[in-house]
C-alpha cells in the first residue's frame, strides 16, 4: 500500500543527519533500512495486524531526534538501579551514559555499549547485528535500524553462567519538545550458557516522546535466557517495540514483559524455533488506565519438532483504556510433538475500558498438543463480597483483587528485587486506577 507519508515520518526521516558509523557494513545496513523507512507509511487500522491499534495520535505529532541527552540527577537514577545486577548499561534518552553504567570485565561475558562492541568484536557484530531484526516489512524496526547509533550488546561465552542479571536501563528525561529515540539491544548467548537480561524503560519526567526499541536475542544450543522487559514510559509517550528471538536446539527462552506506561505502546515479540526441542515461556501483563492503549503481539514459530510453549497474558484496563492482545502460534508442517499452551485473561475495571484479544493458532502438523483459552471479565462479585464481609472496604477489596489478578504474572519474575519492586508499583497503580 502506498500512502502519503505522514508528518510524523516526514519529520523523523527529514531530520536524519546520517554521520558514518565508521563501519562500511553498518552504514550499508542503515542506508538500506532508511530506504525502507522512506518507502513506508505509518500502518493504518485497515491493516489486519493493526486493526485494534489506531496510530493516528502518533502520526499527528512531529518528533525531532534527541540532540543532546539531559543529565538526570544521580538521586533520580539511584532509585532505578538494581543492586543485585551483575552489570548495568544506562541510556538517557537513547544515549549511552557511561558514568551511570557499571560494566565489570570478567571472563565468560562481555557487556558493552555499541561503540566498544564495534571496536572489540567487529566480526561478531557484523554477523549478528540486524540479522534477526527484520526491517523489510515494519516501518518501526526500519526506523530503529536506520538511526542505529547506540545499542546495548551482551555476549555470553559457551558454557558460562552469568552471576547476576544484566540490567539495561533506559531513562527518558522528558522534555517540552517531542523527541524520538531508538533503543537497541543485542544479546548473543553461547551454547549451554545462562543469563538474565532486564530491559527497563523508565520515565524520569513527563513529556511526549517517541521510542522505537528493538531487541535481538540469539540463543545457541542448550543455552537458557531469561528476559524481563518492563515498560514504564511517561503518560504521554509512545513506545512501539519489537523483540526478535531465535532459538537453537534444546535452548530455553523465558520472557516476562510488563507494560504499565505510555499513552500508546505496542510490543511485537517474534520467537523462532530454529531447531528441535526448544522451550519457550512468555508471560505478559498490561495494566493501564485513563486513555492508555497497550498492544501486545506475540508470535512463536514452531518450525521444528518437539518444541514447547507456555504463554500467559493478562490485561487490566481501567478508565477509557484499551488493551490489545494478539497471540500467534504457528506450528509448521513437520513440527511434530509440539506442545503449546496459551492462556489469556482480561480484566475490565470500568465500563469505558476495552480489551481485544485474538488467539491465532495456525497448525500444519498433525501430532501436536495446542491448547488456548481466552476470557475477559470483571472483578468477581462473590470474591468482592467475601472480602467486604471480612471488614475490607469496597475500594480496598477491589484493589486487592485487581492486584491479585496481575500478580500471577509478576510472580513469574525470577529476580526477587525486581519482582517485589514491581509488586509495589502495581499495587500503587491499582490504587490510582481505582
Amino acid at each position: 500500500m502506498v500512502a502519503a507519508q505522514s508528518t510524523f515520518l516526514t519529520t523523523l526521516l527529514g531530520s536524519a543527519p546520517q554521520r558514518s558509523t565508521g563501519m562500511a557494513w553498518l552504514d550499508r545496513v542503515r542506508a538500506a533500512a532508511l530506504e525502507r523507512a522512506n518507502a513506508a507509511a505509518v500502518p493504518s487500522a485497515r491493516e489486519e495486524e493493526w486493526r485494534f491499534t489506531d496510530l493516528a495520535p502518533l502520526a499527528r505529532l512531529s518528533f525531532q531526534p534527541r540532540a543532546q541527552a539531559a543529565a538526570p540527577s544521580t538521586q533520580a537514577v539511584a532509585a532505578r538501579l538494581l543492586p543485585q545486577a551483575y552489570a548495568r548499561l544506562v541510556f538517557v534518552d537513547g544515549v549511552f551514559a557511561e558514568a551511570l553504567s557499571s560494566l565489570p570485565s570478567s571472563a565468560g561475558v562481555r557487556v558493552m555499549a555499541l561503540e566498544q562492541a564495534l571496536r572489540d568484536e567487529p566480526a561478531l557484530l557484523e554477523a549478528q547485528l540486524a540479522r534477526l531484526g527484520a526491517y523489510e516489512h515494519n516501518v518501526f524496526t526500519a526506523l530503529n535500524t536506520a538511526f542505529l547509533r547506540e545499542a546495548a550488546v551482551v555476549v555470553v561465552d559457551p558454557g558460562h553462567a552469568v552471576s547476576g542479571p544484566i540490567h539495561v536501563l533506559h531513562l527518558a528525561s522528558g522534555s517540552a519538545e517531542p523527541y524520538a529515540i531508538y533503543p537497541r539491544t543485542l544479546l548473543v548467548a553461547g551454547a549451554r550458557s545462562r543469563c538474565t537480561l532486564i530491559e527497563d524503560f523508565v520515565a524520569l519526567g513527563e513529556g511526549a516522546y517517541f521510542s522505537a526499541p528493538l531487541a535481538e536475542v540469539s540463543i545457541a544450543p542448550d543455552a537458557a535466557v531469561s528476559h524481563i522487559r518492563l515498560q514504564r514510559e511517561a503518560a504521554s509517550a509512545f513506545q512501539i517495540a519489537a523483540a526478535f528471538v531465535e532459538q537453537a536446539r534444546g535452548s530455553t527462552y523465558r520472557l516476562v514483559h510488563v507494560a504499565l506506561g505510555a499513552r500508546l505502546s505496542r510490543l511485537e515479540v517474534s520467537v523462532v524455533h530454529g531447531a528441535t526441542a526448544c522451550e519457550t515461556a512468555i508471560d505478559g501483563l498490561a495494566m493501564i488506565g485513563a486513555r492508555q492503549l497497550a498492544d501486545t503481539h506475540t508470535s512463536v514459530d514452531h518450525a521444528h519438532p518437539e518444541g514447547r510453549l507456555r504463554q500467559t497474558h493478562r490485561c487490566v484496563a481501567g478508565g477509557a483504556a484499551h488493551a490489545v492482545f494478539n497471540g500467534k502460534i504457528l506450528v509448521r508442517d513437520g513440527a511434530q510433538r509440539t506442545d503449546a499452551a496459551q492462556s489469556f485473561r482480561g480484566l475490565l475495571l470500568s465500563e469505558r475500558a476495552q480489551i481485544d484479544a485474538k488467539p491465532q493458532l495456525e497448525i500444519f502438523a498433525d501430532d501436536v498438543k495446542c491448547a488456548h483459552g481466552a476470557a475477559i471479565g470483571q472483578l468477581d462479585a462473590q470474591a468482592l463480597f467475601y472480602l467486604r464481609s471480612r471488614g475490607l472496604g469496597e475500594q480496598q477489596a477491589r484493589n486487592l483483587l485487581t492486584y491479585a489478578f496481575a500478580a500471577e504474572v509478576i510472580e513469574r519474575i525470577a529476580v526477587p528485587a525486581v519482582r517485589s519492586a514491581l509488586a509495589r508499583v502495581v499495587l500503587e497503580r491499582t490504587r490510582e486506577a481505582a
Partner: protein
Amino acid sequence: MIRAGAPVLLDVRELEASIGDKPILKGVSLEVRAGEVHAIMGPNGSGKSTLAKLLSGHPAYSVTRGSVAYRGSDLLGLSPEARAQAGLFLGFQYPVEIPGVSNAQFLRLAYNSVQAARGAEELDPLEFDDLVREKLALVDMDPSFLERNVNEGFSGGEKKRNEILQMALLEPVLALLDETDSGLDIDALRVVAGGVNSLAGADNAIVLVTHYQRLLNYIEPDYVHVMEGGQIIKTGDKALALELEARGYDWVRAEFDAARAAA
C-alpha cells in the same frame, strides 16, 4: 446459654426480602441475645441461607419490609464491611477462592480492618504471624495454609476450618455460620465444632444455619428454629432438632398450617 436480661444482639422483625422480583423471606422474626446459640434448620430453599447472607449485607437481596436491629441500631443501612467491623461474621457455605492473594495477607488485612474500626491496635506481619499461629491450633490447621492462596485448592474441610480461623481472629459479637457442617467428614466436623465452641462466650452469640441435626451433637443450641417458605414456622429447644431428624419437616408444616387455619 440463656440468661434472663442478657442484652439483645440481633432483633429481626417481620423481615421480607426478595432477589429480583422473587420473594424469598416472607416475614421472619428472630431475637438473639448475648450468650445464646441458635440453630436455624429447614429444607432446601426455605430461605435460611438467604437470611444469613442478607444479615451480613450481601448485595443480591433487597429488603421489602420489616427491620433488623443489631445491638439496638439499624443494621440494614450498613455496608458489609461496616457490619463486619461492628462484629458481625458470616461463615460462608461456599468460601470463595481468591487466586493471587495469600491466606496470610488476607487474614491480616481482615484482622487489621476490624481492629482499626474498633480503635484497636493493628499488627505488622511479624506480630500477626504470632497471633495467627496461636489461632491455627484451634482448628488444627497446618501453618503451610497461611502461604497458600485464599481457599485455592483447599478441600471442603480445609475451607471450613479456614472460615473458623477467620472467626477466631475477628472475634465476632454475632457469628452466622451458614452450613458450616456441609461437606465435612466426622473428624473435620469435630474439629470445626470444637473451634466454634471455644469461641462461644457470654458476650457473643452464634446462629447456626444447618440442614442436619448432626452438627448439633457437637454444638448444643439453646434454640432450634424451623424455617420453611421464607418464615420461621416453629421454635423449640435442642429436642426439636432430634425430632426433626426422626420425623422430617412435613409434620411441622402441617402443624403450622393447622394453627393458622384455626386462627
